[in-house]
């Protein structure tokens, strides 16, 4: 579904990462872990077409009709066409403050489905809010400022699902949430995979959540991928840097990260 080849991102003189090679199969959940500032979110924004990589390719398989496209080589106009296949859930949800929950979720529908009636859009918004586990009637009319962190993330997820994307990108889905809300978000990630068949890339530094929800885990550190594999393999990794990150120890080769 997604194939990353020799991907590099430089910010001025600074190398954020380079030489990244990754493959995400259709319907798979790939989680990218790593310490703060290692380039996880930048990688996610490259996958969403929001940041343009300095070198390399990101191939996305859009099915039989549209074939395979290289996100890194598309112009903004073509990227906009491809973006409807990619949903992104932002770290703090990034809901539009001036719009209600209904208007936030309906936003992409108005853009891409101009022929649909208000009743059809309303029904779709209600279906999506129910799908992400929100009480529809009490939530739909609220403004983002009236919602808790967990509810905002669910609304953000509903908005990103609006156009039925093939790929979902999650930026720190558990951050700022209590353990129960974080576990519900994990369950949602898995239900998107199992029920909708969506391919997911999750960026997180919450190791327990990642090991629980992923099919594959990749660890980014020092500008490159130092480990890629199934969660149990990563959990038992012999690499000291991976082990330190997994155990959350203050002692070890990663202590000078910040």
């Amino acid at each position: 579904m997604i194939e990353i080849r020799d991907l590099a991102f430089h910010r001025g003189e600074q190398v954020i990462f380079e030489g990244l090679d990754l493959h995400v199969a259709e319907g798979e959940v790939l989680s990218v872990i790593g310490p703060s500032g290692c380039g996880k979110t930048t990688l996610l924004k490259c996958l969403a077409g929001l940041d343009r990589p300095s070198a390399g390719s990101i191939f996305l398989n859009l099915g039989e009709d549209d074939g395979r496209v290289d996100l890194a080589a598309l112009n903004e106009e073509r990227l906009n066409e491809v973006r409807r296949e990619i949903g992104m859930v932002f770290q703090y949800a990034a809901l539009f403050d001036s719009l209600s929950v209904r208007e936030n979720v309906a936003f992409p529908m108005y853009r891409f489905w101009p022929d649909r009636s208000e009743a059809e859009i309303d029904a779709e918004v209600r279906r999506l809010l129910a799908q992400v586990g929100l009480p529809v009637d009490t939530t739909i009319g609220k403004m983002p400022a009236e919602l808790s962190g967990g509810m905002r993330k669910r609304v953000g997820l509903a908005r990103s699902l609006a156009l039925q994307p093939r790929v979902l990108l999650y930026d720190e889905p558990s951050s700022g949430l209590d353990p129960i809300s974080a576990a519900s978000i994990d369950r949602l990630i898995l239900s998107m995979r199992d029920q909708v068949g969506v391919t997911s890339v999750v960026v997180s530094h919450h190791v327990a959540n990642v090991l629980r929800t992923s099919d594959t885990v990749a660890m980014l550190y020092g500008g490159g991928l130092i480990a890629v594999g199934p969660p149990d393999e990563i959990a038992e990794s012999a690499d000291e840097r991976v082990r330190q990150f997994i155990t959350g120890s203050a002692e070890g080769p990663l202590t000078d990260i910040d």
Partner: protein
Amino acid sequence: MSAPARPGPVPAWGPIGALGAAVTASAEVVGSCVLLWGQTVRLVRAGRISLGATLRQADAVGVGSLPMAALTCVFTSAVLCLYVTDLFSRYGFNEFIGMLMGQVVVREMGPLLTAIVVASREGSRIAAELAAMKVTEQLDALRSLATDPVEYLVVPRYLGGLLAMPLLSLLSSMAGVAGAYPVAAARGVSSDVYWGSVMRGVSVSHVGGGLVKALLFGAIITIVASRTGLHTGFGAAAVGRSVTASVVLCILLVHIADFGLALVFA
């Protein structure tokens, strides 16, 4: 043995270097404003306009700023009239007071004071709104939903400013000329003399010149404020810096444009 000396910072060039850096930075900002202006005009010409959003912005700029802009014009015109009446009545030029007030307020003070009020009130609002959207990733969210932030956010603000500013400037100028009258009347200038002088002194070209100025100021304020908001850095402090930079740059560019237009119209 002492450690080898680490290379120090590049030597500064003193005041000349600082001036050069400031000029370069200013040119970069103005250049990006011109690019944003061009991008906005292209979208407008392509018909990528939301009428509802444009009218909401026009309402915010026009109706929202009218009381403050009108009051500013009234009081500034009243003060000016006070000095002018004292001077002119000393030499028996009472019949020219209305003419002078009309021309100065309609051609110059009305559009300029209105622009300063709008730059402070609406320029800061636009910059703060867009800057807050930038730091909370709402601009990225827009792009991820295949929506161009310039089309969705800048075009309505730009068109709203263009729609509202001429009308706002005209109403504020009228309030200014009217606000000067009680001062002139208190100094013995009759209603007939004052208003007759205003009607003789203010021509259609003066009103048109004021409207052209207001239109240009509206474009400058909305584009500069939008550009400053869209280019905000990270964190809450960056939002504050953007708002300050927006107001300062808007007022500065409005004054420069005003001088340029004054030379043209003169």
